[in-house]
């Protein structure tokens, strides 16, 4: 049996799977067998989110415009956080904001809570016009944000980045320079759906974020380049729906895999992906999941045990 345990920024995961922020409410559905849980992005003030329609189906994916609906920092810390730390798996809290100081306040408050394993800085939400997304498209801003938040905590800070930039490696390097312990790639790709009847923007928020299998190639590209550029550990996500997808993200440079939209289609996904990953590693004779990480960065000419017994 291959060893699926993984250490990520000092956090021990039984399986290298987490949810993407905003794609699972563990307080409603439990953690479904994931190795750690990531909260929906929380902001300083409560947000109702965007008016409906909030989701639209697209080829091999969906566009969403949820608009960072969340209870706000106060209610989150008082009501949600105590219950989330009882889930039995490491907890990552995702925070968002409209200025460096907003992030810093949220980071300090969340970090004060025992039982939080890491904090994810969402600088890539496409569903708000200003704030997080504009920080995450600017290297200098991203670095300054990380530096500011670094002052507030010793917990690992993860930077969640958007693929909708000209050069994701540049932003990743800026996050690294600012003190990010790891990267989370990718958030949704900027997109839009048009209502087939009214021919107006379908989503209440106008534009939205594209997710699901459709964006897998975009995500693999971002993970590969950001991982090579920075050497930081990466939580890779974007359309993952199978153990084979996981293998490809691991090879591209991720050490933990995020499941998002595919969970909506299948809440048994974590269990299925775990089983598939297990047997794929066994077929390749790889003793541990870590043996796959960054394989795609190495030329094939190197001895490649992972190819033994494989046929094209």
């Amino acid at each position, binding site marked *: 049996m291959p060893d699926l345990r993984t250490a990520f920024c000092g956090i021990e995961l039984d399986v290298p799977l987490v949810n993407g922020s905003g794609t699972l409410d563990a307080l409603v559905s439990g953690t479904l067998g994931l190795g750690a849980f990531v909260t929906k992005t929380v902001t300083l003030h409560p947000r109702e989110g965007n008016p409906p329609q909030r989701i639209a189906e697209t080829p091999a994916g969906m566009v*969403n415009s949820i608009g960072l609906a969340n209870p706000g920092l106060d209610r989150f810390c008082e009501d949600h956080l105590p219950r989330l730390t009882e889930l039995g798996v490491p907890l990552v809290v995702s925070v968002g904001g409209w200025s460096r100081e907003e992030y810093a306040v949220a980071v300090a408050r969340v970090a004060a809570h025992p039982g939080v394993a890491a904090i994810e800085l969402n600088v890539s939400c496409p569903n708000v016009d200003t704030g997080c997304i504009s920080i995450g498209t600017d290297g200098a801003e991203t670095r300054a944000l990380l530096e500011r938040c670094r002052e507030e905590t010793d917990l690992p800070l993860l930077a969640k980045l958007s693929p909708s930039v000209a050069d994701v490696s540049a932003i990743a390097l800026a996050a690294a320079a600012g003190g990010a312990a790891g990267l989370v790639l990718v958030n949704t790709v900027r997109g839009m759906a048009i209502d087939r009847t009214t021919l107006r923007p379908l989503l209440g928020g106008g534009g939205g974020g594209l997710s699901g299998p459709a964006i897998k190639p975009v995500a693999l590209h971002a993970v590969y380049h950001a991982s090579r550029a920075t050497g930081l550990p990466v939580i890779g996500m974007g359309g993952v729906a199978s153990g084979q997808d996981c293998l490809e993200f691991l090879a591209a440079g991720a050490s933990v895999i995020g499941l998002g939209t595919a969970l*909506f289609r299948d809440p048994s996904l974590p269990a299925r992906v775990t089983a598939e990953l297990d047997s794929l590693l066994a077929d390749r004779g790889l003793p541990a999941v870590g043996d796959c990480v960054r394989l795609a960065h190495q030329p094939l000419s190197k001895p490649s045990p992972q190819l033994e017994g494989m046929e094209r």
Partner: protein
Amino acid sequence: MPPAELAEGYRRLPVVRAEAVGAYTLLVLRNDGGPVGSPGQFFMLRSVPEPAAAYLPRALSAAWADEREIAFLLDVRGPGTGSLVTAGEVELLGPLGTGFDLRPGASLLVGGGIGAAILPWLVRLLDPAPRVVLGFRSERHAVCAALVDPEATVVLDPVVVTEPLARLMPFAGTVYACGPDPMLHAVAALCAEHDVPCQLAMEAAMACGFGACYGCAVRIDGEWKRLCVEGPVLAAERVMAGA
């Protein structure tokens, strides 16, 4: 759905038949003895094999269900419902959400369009037998009224269900309604006016059905809340709050 059951995911059931009922389609699945819940709850369904044109599952409330069969009445609108009515097998998750709260005493059922789909089961369970008022766009759409109650009062566009309903007010019992939002709001307003308890089965675009996506936002208690978590059946007051 309890987390442990949810984690087991979708179960696969064979299609027994799919047949036209006027403008709608009745889809009958052979149940494997799995849980079916109660009227007003819902299932997420997807067809097998995965259709290229419908990535997400579709939310449907059963027309009736027991351990042997689960039936749905469908309005085929797009690729998801289209693929379900031609599939040989479907996969389904549920029962999900909260259904009708069956109150003792007299009951009055109000259905608009495909909202009638979920009433046959309710009719079977209510005792004494309910009064039923249904509204449809056309004769073809009204064919399904027979599945709900052969004695139902049926109105067709441009007559709206609140017309016959108003004549039954004040109703000494509970009103259960399902249909398009404007109809539900009109029914709720009428019931509020006459102080009649009323439950509404609502709809919203859903990606997951189990609280994960926050897509199914509906105005509940004056806020955007997740219909799949709070409903889909809601006390009318919660929908009217702040509306």
